[in-house]
């Protein structure tokens, strides 16, 4: 017990920056240690902040850490730190601290607006769809970018359409999506990522069923 105290008091213990993980705002993620029979796992989220969150896991749990991090501002990506130290045996030595980086990316909504969403039955469908992405900031810090658009109609991807506008000539349910592109160079190359539910693509339906007005028959009396 005095060993724990000694290590906690002496933060001059060797500190290694280890993994970088990308996760999504509010989406839970799970980190599993490769050694699952240590006596105790001590996780601390954001130890240097005003409100660190400590989680102590016992041997039975295998040290598996599950958490969801919520962004302070929903559209601004944030860096969080997660430290792990372990005790091999009760009253044993506390390991050096390993500091991992958790980069939390905002959820993105891609909405599609149509120039015209319904057409007269006697006219061809001729709509122009424009996709817009919720503004998010902070991605440039890490070198994260958004992919080109991917349009889909009725659930099937329309190949070759990668810009923010789509000329539409047939009715259907249209959706545009982007995805996060994680960096492959620089200081924030991911060790792992969990990006499910990152993007919410809103659909726009193009209809072609506006009735044509019938010209009434004229009779002279």
């Amino acid at each position: 017990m005095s060993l724990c105290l000694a290590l906690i008091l002496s933060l001059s213990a060797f500190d290694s920056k280890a993994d970088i993980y990308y996760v999504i705002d509010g989406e839970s993620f799970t980190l599993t240690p490769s050694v699952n029979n240590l006596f105790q796992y001590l996780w601390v989220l954001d130890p240097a902040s005003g409100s660190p969150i400590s989680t102590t896991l016992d041997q039975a749990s295998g040290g598996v850490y599950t958490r969801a991090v919520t962004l302070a501002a929903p559209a601004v990506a944030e860096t969080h730190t997660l430290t792990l130290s372990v005790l091999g045996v009760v009253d044993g030595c506390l390991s050096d601290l390993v500091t991992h980086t958790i980069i939390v990316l905002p959820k993105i909504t891609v909405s599609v607006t149509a120039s015209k969403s319904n057409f007269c039955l006697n006219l061809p469908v001729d709509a122009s769809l424009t996709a817009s992405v919720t503004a998010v900031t902070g991605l440039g810090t890490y070198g994260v970018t958004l992919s080109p658009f991917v349009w889909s109609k009725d659930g099937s991807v329309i190949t070759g359409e990668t810009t923010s506008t789509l000329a539409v000539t047939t009715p259907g349910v249209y959706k545009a999506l982007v995805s996060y592109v994680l960096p492959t160079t620089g200081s924030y190359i991911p060790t792992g990522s969990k990006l499910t539910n990152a993007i919410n693509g809103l659909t726009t339906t193009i209809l072609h069923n506006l009735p044509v007005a019938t010209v009434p028959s004229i009779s002279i009396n």
Partner: protein
Amino acid sequence: MKRIYFLAFVSTTTNTLYPILYLMKFVRTILVIVLNWISLVAVSQPANAVYANAETHSANVTNQANAINAGAIVKPDNSFATLTASTVVGTTTTWIQLAFPASVTASAGTPKTVYVRTNDFSAALLGGGIDIEAYTGASGTSGALSAPAYSTYALSDGTMLLGVVLSSTFRSVRVTLRSPAALGSNSLNVYHAFYGPTQTNNSNPYPFNAADCGLPNVTQTATSGLTVGSFGVSGAGNAIDGDPTNTKSTFYATGLSVLSGTISQTFYFNGVSNSADAVRLVLSQGGSLVALDLAKSISVQGYSGDTPVGTSVLLNTLLDADLLGLLGTSNTRASVYFAPKNASGVSVVFDKVTVSIDIGLLGVALGANGLNIHDIRRVPDMPASSDITVCNNIGSGIITALTSQESILGSSAFTYKWYSVLRNGVSLFTGKAYNLSGLTAPGQKSYYVEIEKGSCGVVSARKETKVTTIAAPIAPLLNLSP
């Protein structure tokens, strides 16, 4: 007891006297050093000892004025009267009677011990002898007390004290020397007689002096169960003269017809010990006895007054392999520590220690140069310290030591020194708390700490303090579950 003479100088504060003051200081320092050395070797009397100051004597006594504290003679000193008793036709006796300034009150309940300092007469008195009687008068033989036989104590300077316990009021003691059984002469030097007016027990009447560096005042030798042959302890006073190297007392036994009996030497310290005191013995053997056999036949026992305290300990239990090796080599000194403790391991206080050899246990002849005691003195027992465990990823820790005697003598009385070996070696650090660093390899290392009380130069035994370095685990790699 040490005597320190300070020469007082009256000085006036003028500049011209400063050089003279420095010279006076220098001279005084030298004088103090010289007198301290002398007193370390001189006899140990209580500071308030009362000396006989009048004498009467028979024929064949020379320099009788030297035996009393009167006129030009200031006791204690090293001047003496000489008694000579010769056998020519028949045996004769020669005596000197030493009277105290006033009658000395004594009773069976509060006896007084009178000590007469003489030269070492343990070499045979050729069948003659010495008697001591006490009388109520300052002279003459009226009012004779019934006195028990005297006890003989050896002093560090080679002289002896004959102590006789008197249980009724007396004024003088008479020392009688008897001539040899056959033709020849005996002689005896008598220095003085004294008693301690504030003595509190009969076995060790000296007042306690905390600054005595642990040396015994007097020592006694005894044998039992041995009759034929030449046996005993020679040079008894050498064991308490403060020189742990060259001078020594020697237990010897030659020409024994049976191999049984004991030879012992008892050491009287300057009053009762502190709690958690120990004794450091410097021993060697002059022969070629097997060290383990010799050690198993030697026992060490502490006493408080005449009562044994603590368990009697066989010397072999105090020796490790290194010390056995030293003791096994002829004339090679080994320093052994003995801390009197009771059966529960609690330290006991003592004012006397006896070292005995059991000839029967030894099983072989002790020889002419059996066991030598070079030095014996009281030292503090080793301090207490706690083992520590250090994580190799921190790599540092502090080991501390503390002696229980700090509560008696204060913390500034002790110097703590740390070593990496049990004996000898170079001190790594001085102080109670030793900061260690660089402990990165898992394993165990021992450090040893000793204490020195004041500036006596004699240190306690070393306490082993274990530092265990254990390996810290490594935080494992992670896997992000999708």
